[in-house]
């Protein structure tokens, strides 16, 4: 259960991007958040994933208030989230081969021993073939890189997935494949989903409930 209560957030003082927004994500629920570019929906997604400290308001994860953000958030709260961003290129370390990219959260949490097993499970789930796993980001297409970024988001088995415009840069077939991979993971684990985007048709097809940004403010 993730609750955002009266969140106000932004990047410069006295000019918040998000004003007094509340949103609740029940366990296992999927919510699609629709809004035009520049409305603040990505900022709200970052707050929800504990990646941006709001100026006011509170975030509750399973009833427990979040007090610390980003790197200083407690590990059990931080690893409850898996995040997929719009621009796979910008969110992938260009020096790491795709295996390294997917395994990074395991290394960071001292669980490197699980790497071979998790890679073997996740690569087919997101549609990555063995020859792709040894390549670096510049050797794969945007769609293939985004598949790896999704695998990275799933590697710690998060309870909440936040997908911020995950498919905006992708062709129809890759988009459908990634959404199917997310839904397979949710069906198996009961994870909740916050999908942020501007594509009405896509989010209505994908999520149990869609809310428009205007309804939240």
């Amino acid at each position, binding site marked *: 259960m993730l609750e955002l209560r009266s969140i106000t957030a932004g990047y410069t003082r006295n000019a918040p991007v998000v004003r007094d927004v509340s949103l609740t994500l029940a366990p296992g629920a999927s919510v699609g958040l629709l809004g035009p570019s520049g409305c603040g929906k990505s900022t709200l997604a970052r707050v929800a994933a504990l990646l941006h400290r709001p100026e006011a308001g509170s975030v509750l994860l399973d009833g427990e208030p979040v007090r610390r953000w980003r790197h200083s958030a407690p590990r059990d709260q931080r690893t409850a989230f898996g995040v997929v961003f719009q621009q796979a290129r910008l969110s992938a370390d260009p020096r790491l081969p795709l295996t390294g990219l997917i395994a990074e959260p395991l290394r960071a949490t001292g669980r490197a021993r699980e790497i071979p097993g998790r890679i073997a499970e996740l690569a087919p789930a997101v549609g990555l073939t063995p020859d792709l796993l040894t390549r670096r980001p510049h050797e794969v*297409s945007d769609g293939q890189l985004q598949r790896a970024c999704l695998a990275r988001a799933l590697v710690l088995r998060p309870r909440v997935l936040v997908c911020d415009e995950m498919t905006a840069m992708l062709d*129809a*077939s*890759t988009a459908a*494949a990634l959404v199917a991979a997310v839904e397979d993971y949710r069906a198996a684990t009961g994870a909740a989903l916050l999908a942020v985007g*501007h594509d009405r048709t896509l989010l209505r097809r994908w999520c149990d409930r869609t809310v428009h940004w205007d309804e939240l403010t």
Partner: protein
Amino acid sequence: MSTGIGPGPAGTATGPAPRPAPVLSVRDLSVRFLMPAGRRVAAVTGARFDVLPGECLALIGESGCGKSVLASALLGLLPGNAQTAGSAFLGGLDLLTAGERTLARTVRGRLIGLVPQSPAAHLTPVRTVRSQLEETVAALTATRGRAALRTAAEAAAERAAFPATHLDRYPHELSGGLAQRAATALALVGDAPLLLADEPTTGLDRDLVDRTVDELRRHVDDPGGTEGAGRALLMITHDLAAAERIADRVAVMYAGRIVELADATAFFGTPGPRHPYSRGLLEALPDRAFRPVPGMPPKLGDLPDGCAFAPRCARATDLCTGQAPPSGEVACHHPHVPEDVRA
């Protein structure tokens, strides 16, 4: 140079009007990249298509299928390790054999206007839109003198519906849609007969996509260009909704080959696409089956002998893995046959 490709039978007596000469005529265009250790990457293979004045051809396909390489080949912007074959005639000029001097002085901006993928990255960040427009007008037209340049730049902005009130702004002060219009205004300055739009809508929200492509369409229908017949637009995109909105014809590219060339109305409506890959792409849309094409596209450096789509295709037989698909409007051994044509 009559081929089976085109909106109607060329040169038949029953045709309502003679087909206008194409603005761009691409024949058997191939691009190979020579890689270390003698590897060759077949980025584009045997592309054939025409773009007529007043027509929008949408080139669609997955990322990495060779669409942007094709665009770079037309503009002479391929890297040094690329080899091209075939021809791409724009008027009387073969773009593939033209020298850098010709390309720089007569082609880019003058014969081909490029609407870029990412307008924010295309504009110079440290100069205002007005200053960039004035520079472009001075470089591409005979306009001289400060006052004349200012007027011409304002007229150019107006043609792309860029508001005059925002001319003195810097690129970072513009929204995505306005930056797109600024880039389009720059592309229109040279009054080029061919507009080449490379993924013009990536990352824009749906309303902005609609506005952007509608504006591109308007420039196609606008009786500008050199002979008043309207411009031709080649739009490269993976956004099928954008293609459906404005295209007259659709070319589907897979693994470097154009596998289907079809009328847009038939392609998106009934009878629908004929190539199994094209059908798979449309079925992946969220307002259709939302079902991905199984598998992944092949590596362009290691293409199979037969049809490159065969490993992912439900209709594939031994014929497909052994023999290259036929060339023509549908590059497939087992295309879908429209119901009403089946005898």
